[in-house]
């Protein structure tokens, strides 16, 4: 296929433009497109999903994951190039082109994005060169290492601090899973001995208040609401006041979904923040931006624009129980500097996990459930 792009031929490990020059020879299409299911998906409607943490490191031995695919890709190129394993890779100036292309393809198809993919491969080649690694397993774990590093640099688990009350504002574009995440967090905090209170700040979407109320009753936590059409900021102000009066120590504030390119909606959010500050200058103590793992490069614009109007403290990546890989997280980690703190792995209350870079990387690289 892309022979015209190949003209730039073999990739030099020392060149910064590594992946750009080596446009991938596409893998047989079906392979990556019909990626086997992630773990935990059957559990979606049963409320007992397996932890993603446990599903992660399973696949070193081969199989359908990236490792396995790469291995078969390698076998092919090995034959074609007549290279032996030892000379194929590394320790030399050039890294085998088809291997890099396979990696690039994999990363691009996970929404890592061009820029971040290039950066990752650059980092990888540099390390590989330095360490003179000479087998593909080592290379693969090196890749996982590089990816985990990128996420790890920003990693910071979510934590509650004493406040009266600790206010968590949950924001994001439409349909990403804000309300569901609040329901999940409510259950989590309650189980940890806190006294959460939910605030129905989405006063716009039809039945959004009712949706939150149902989550409230599932987790057995109070919900403060005024109903549709009310002013979001005033609902939230009421809620924090109510929380203080009742001794609730955590307020989870829901907001309406808003596209970040809608100035007036973003201004409304800025107002929410201002009003909360009037109540407590330290509030909101946490602002979580919820992102759908299926989102492509637009997630970067979301993070950027939301952080301009609200003091974001962390990210939540939802719907990782599907085929979406959430690879945009790498570019996010680099650009936004915000830590991913939770991931959503289903629609039920306990389908929320603290974010863990290594497991995430393993899942993204296609290491399926054991």
């Amino acid at each position, binding site marked *: 296929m892309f022979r015209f792009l190949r003209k730039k031929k073999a990739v030099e490990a020392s060149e910064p433009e590594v992946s750009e020059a080596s446009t991938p020879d596409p893998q047989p299409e079906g392979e990556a*497109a019909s990626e086997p299911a992630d773990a935990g998906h059957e559990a979606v409607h049963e409320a007992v999903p397996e932890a993603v943490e446990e599903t992660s490191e399973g696949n070193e031995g081969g199989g359908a994951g990236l490792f396995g695919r790469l291995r078969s890709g390698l076998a092919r190129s090995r034959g074609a190039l007549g290279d032996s394993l030892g000379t194929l890779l590394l320790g030399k100036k050039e890294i085998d082109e088809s291997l890099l292309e396979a990696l690039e393809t994999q990363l691009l198809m996970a929404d890592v994005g061009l820029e971040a993919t290039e950066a990752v491969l650059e980092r990888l080649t540099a390390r590989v060169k330095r360490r003179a690694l000479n087998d593909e397993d080592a290379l693969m774990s090196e890749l996982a290492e590089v990816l985990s590093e990128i996420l790890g640099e920003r990693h910071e688990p979510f934590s509650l601090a004493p406040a009266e009350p600790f206010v968590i504002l949950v924001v994001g574009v439409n349909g990403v899973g804000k309300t569901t995440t609040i329901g999940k967090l409510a259950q989590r905090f309650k189980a940890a001995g806190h006294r959460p209170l939910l605030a129905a700040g989405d006063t716009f979407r039809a039945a959004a208040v009712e949706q939150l109320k149902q989550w409230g009753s599932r987790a057995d936590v109070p919900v403060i609401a005024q109903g549709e059409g009310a002013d979001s900021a005033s609902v939230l102000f009421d809620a924090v006041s109510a929380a203080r009066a009742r001794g609730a120590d955590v307020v989870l504030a829901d907001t309406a979904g808003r596209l970040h390119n809608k100035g007036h909606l973003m201004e409304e959010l800025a107002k929410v923040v201002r009003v909360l500050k009037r109540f407590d200058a330290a509030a909101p103590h946490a602002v979580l931006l919820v992102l759908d793992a299926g989102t492509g490069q637009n997630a970067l614009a979301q993070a950027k624009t939301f952080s301009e109007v609200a003091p974001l403290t962390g990210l939540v990546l939802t*719907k990782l129980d599907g085929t979406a890989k959430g690879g945009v997280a790498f570019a996010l980690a680099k650009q936004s500097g915000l830590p991913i703190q939770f991931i959503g792995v289903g629609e039920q209350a306990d389908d929320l996990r603290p974010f863990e870079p290594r497991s995430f990387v393993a899942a993204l690289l296609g290491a399926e459930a054991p």
Partner: protein
Amino acid sequence: MFDSLTERLSTTLRALGGKAKLTEDNIGETLREVRRALLEADVALSVVQGFLDAVRTRALGMEVSSALSPGQAFLKIVHEELVRVMGAERAELNLAVKPPAIILLAGLQGAGKTTTAGKLAQYLKTREKKRVMMVSADVYRPAAIEQLAVLGAQVGVAVHPSQALSSPEAIVRDAVVAAKTQLADVLIVDTAGRLAIDDAMMAEIKTLHEALAPAETLFVVDAMTGQDAANTAKAFADALPLTGVVLSKADGDARGGAALSVRQITGRPIKFLGMGEKLEALEPFHPDRMASRILGMGDVLSLIEEAEQKLDRKKAERLATKIKKGKGFDLEDFRDQLQQMKSMGGMQGMLEKLPGMGQMAKAAEQSLDQKRFVHMEALICAMTPKERRFPDLISGSRKQRIARGSGLQVQDVNRLLKQHKQMQKMMKKMGQKGGMQKMMRGMGALMGGGGGMPPMPPPGGLRRR
């Protein structure tokens, strides 16, 4: 959306402008840029590859005719391929079956199915005068049934009640009976969001499909979706005989590559764009126009259609005749124009649809000047009817009065008058054959000449004339 892709392609293609003929060498660079652009726009990798292959094969095999420069010829190929992928022409809903015609909506969690159900109900009720009924088969998500009920009440259509404890299949069977007895023309069935890999849920929607035999089975997909659009679209298309796609949240600034992916992978036409959270925010999707838009040729046609719909037709006609007769375009007309522009979603919304105006739209949002339009309108309102009709009357003292009356400065009055003059000239020039299209161009020119705006990008379609 799409504007960055638009911008990107227009620069790389321009670079090809002077080349003598298309060769591996000179299109290689451009194709690489097209690849980058498409990937950055979240077009699925496999679709990008197929697309570039097709473009490349055609480009190399092609005799460059003398009429076109190689750059133009290449652009034409890219455009044609895009159009081909997007589907050759606009696809309508096909509801010509024995009533009730059933519309089944399917998609991932949070894609916009329920909202789309409400929008379709509104569209069919008001535009096509259909008797619409809706039903929710989402027994899983909290308050999903209630959400649809609220939307139904807003639109003013019947919503068949669902119990969260019944099975979706029982609910929809019930609804079909109800739709028949109540003589509904259309029954819209909302379903729960589901993952393509959730076998149980995919089996469920297949059952629903069998029970309903829908006239339309629409896959609702979020315009912000990344590479996963390919997986998901394929799985839904495999499970269900889709008849079309709705691209939701297209009012965002995602570059919308998912549109291309889904279209290519399902082979089904995109029938609508979701353009906002409100019930009116559903727009027909025009593949050819979208392709043009991607390529920086703007969506002039869409704009015109929209303008025609929202415009006060009488006023438009009055103006058209007036201009035709060579009569002046007075300040009264100017004010009408401003008001109409406002009702078309403001300057930004309009500029976005014009060729090569992506950047301007951005600039317009930032610097401009919604305020300026408000100001212009205020100024005109502060005039007497006579002054509006005969702007030449407006002398120094009148200017002062108008400025005071509108709370603005005399220089604002001057600027308005100058702009009006420019506009008047435009109108005269294109007065021969009336029509909205020209009027819209006049608007563009007004913006270009208004000062305070960034320079126009090199000629797109707009000012070519």
